[in-house]
């Protein structure tokens, strides 16, 4: 078959047209979908405002009054007859766990990324490491829970108890699911996201920037700490944002390593050491699961679930917003690398 180069055949043109039309439709469909999602979200909120209170018999007053009354009740008052706990401890537990996870995963991920990008030579070992990291991202999350339970809780926690809490054995202190192990498990789960984003951020920096630093008599370490990491900071934060989003969506693994339906005390306090790392804690995601599966709320079930869902999403958005603002500040200060 002979084809003149640089001359598009009618068939090709038609293809392009069809493809173009398809793209337009696809885009339109996506826009519609996102608008619908946002609408549904608002709908859920309203549903929450109107539905559950009827079950509790406080149907008087306008929507906002009922909403407020509902919110208060949900946040602060557990109901034994309905079998639901107050949501505030669950909110606090979720936030503390995600913050702790972030504190663990960010430096760890950056460390691995720096190793891969700046130190590792291209050997079979680093190849293996990269493949392992990519595979880690594909492991079902509940498997992480199993690993956390086996490794963190029983192996590491049991060992810690043997060394430091021998007098209280056989009652375990760290050798049982708790906040620290849940955070570590989630950190492991989200590690690939942070590593990949940070490594890409570092790899994107031009060689000339590294050479510029070396040419001024800087060592490799100084170059990494003072030039490369600040310049790749917004990529690292992007990774952290994705990690938070991923972590906030997980419930299954947490049920194995520290989250419970009811915890008598909060994992945080105003006295040192402020965070009770070994304590079990409550979690919004688990709250949703628990209400859906076990609570005795009858008709109000969906409204209640929606309320918790709205709160969970709101929380994640708040945490993400913090990271996004931080990233913006970083970018404003340094301005993103110019086109190149």
């Amino acid at each position: 078959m002979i084809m003149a180069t640089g001359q598009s055949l009618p068939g090709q043109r038609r293809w392009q047209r069809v493809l173009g039309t398809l793209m337009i439709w696809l885009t339109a469909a996506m826009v519609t979908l996102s608008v619908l999602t946002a609408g549904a979200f608002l709908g859920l909120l309203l549903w929450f405002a109107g539905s559950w209170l009827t079950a509790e018999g406080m149907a008087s007053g306008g929507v906002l009054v009922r909403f407020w009354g509902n919110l208060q009740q949900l946040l602060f008052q557990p109901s034994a007859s309905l079998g639901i706990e107050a949501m505030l401890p669950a909110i606090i537990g979720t936030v503390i766990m995600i913050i702790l996870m972030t504190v663990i995963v960010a430096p760890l991920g950056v460390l691995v990324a720096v190793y891969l990008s700046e130190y590792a030579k291209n050997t079979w070992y680093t190849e293996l490491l990269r493949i392992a990291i990519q595979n880690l991202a594909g492991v079902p999350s509940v498997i992480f829970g199993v690993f956390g339970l086996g490794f963190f809780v029983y192996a590491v926690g049991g060992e810690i108890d043997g060394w430091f809490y021998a007098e209280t054995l056989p009652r375990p202190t760290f050798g049982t699911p708790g906040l620290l192990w849940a955070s570590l498990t989630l950190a492991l789960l989200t590690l690939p996201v942070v590593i990949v984003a940070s490594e890409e951020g570092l790899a994107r920096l031009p060689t000339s920037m590294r050479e510029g630093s070396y040419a001024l008599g800087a060592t490799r370490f100084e170059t990494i700490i003072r030039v490369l990491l600040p310049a790749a900071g917004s990529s690292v934060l992007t990774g952290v944002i994705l990690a938070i989003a991923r972590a906030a969506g997980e419930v299954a693994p947490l049920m194995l390593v520290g989250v419970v339906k009811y915890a008598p005390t909060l994992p945080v306090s105003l006295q040192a050491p402020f965070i009770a790392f070994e304590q079990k804690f409550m979690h919004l995601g688990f709250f949703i699961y628990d209400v859906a599966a076990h609570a005795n709320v009858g008709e109000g079930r969906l409204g209640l679930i929606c309320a918790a869902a709205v709160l969970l999403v709101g929380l994640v958005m708040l945490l993400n917003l913090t990271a996004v603002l931080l990233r913006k500040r970083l970018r404003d200060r340094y301005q993103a690398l110019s086109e190149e």
Partner: protein
Amino acid sequence: MPYMQRDALIQASQFQSTAARTPPGLVVQQLSLSYPGNGSALVDINLDIPAGAVTAVIGPSGCGKSTLLRCFNRMNDTIEGCRYSGAIYVGDNNVLAAATDVTALRRRVGMVFQRPNPFAKSIYDNVAYGPRIGGIRRKRDLDEIVERALRDVALWDEVSDRLHTGALRLSLGQQQRLVLARTIAIEPEVLLLDEPASSLDPISTLKIEELIYELKHTYTIIIVTHNMQQAARVSDWTAFMNGGKLVEFDETDRIFTNPVERATEDYITGRYG
């Protein structure tokens, strides 16, 4: 542009910083270099670069000009598998010796690259980077160093009101002068300039050339350039390279008016790639 005022400032600052300084010359002996999988890039180079003058290195693309320059501050050490032999004396020290403290060497022999490469930091932090690495911490000292370096490269008037904004917002010409200021801030003795004006517009190029002219009394300067007129304008000595070898080295006037080698003449008159 207030030239008079600027020149006065530059002279004043030179008087301060480098009053009784004599920069070293460089002696290259039997320098050969090869990159992995690419054969030899430099073949038995012998060269005697005079102190306190501007030496231009010219030659066709890929003849090894950058490679030669990067030997002087051991920048080629960062390329894995790059092998070299021979000796380069900066003053009395053979910098290619294994015992050389490379970071200390790079503070003596500063380098400006072909494309401006400011860090993703503020203007101030870019210039203060070298001194900070060198252990200078006091803000007053740093302020002084930054101002002096920026004045030396005639950038102070343009940026003094936005020292703490991102350096990447500057124009390319400004960025290249900033990078030069960053290098000068650590007070090296030798300046290596690898086609410093090749990505700049004519006005910025002119500024860089003026700077070279002004700096040559206090630094030993080696400049790689593609531009014959530029070599003729700014340099005192010129080395012509071809195929990894040094073909001819002489005073610039001689190279351009009466070269010994046929290849040099061909290249200069444009009869060569």
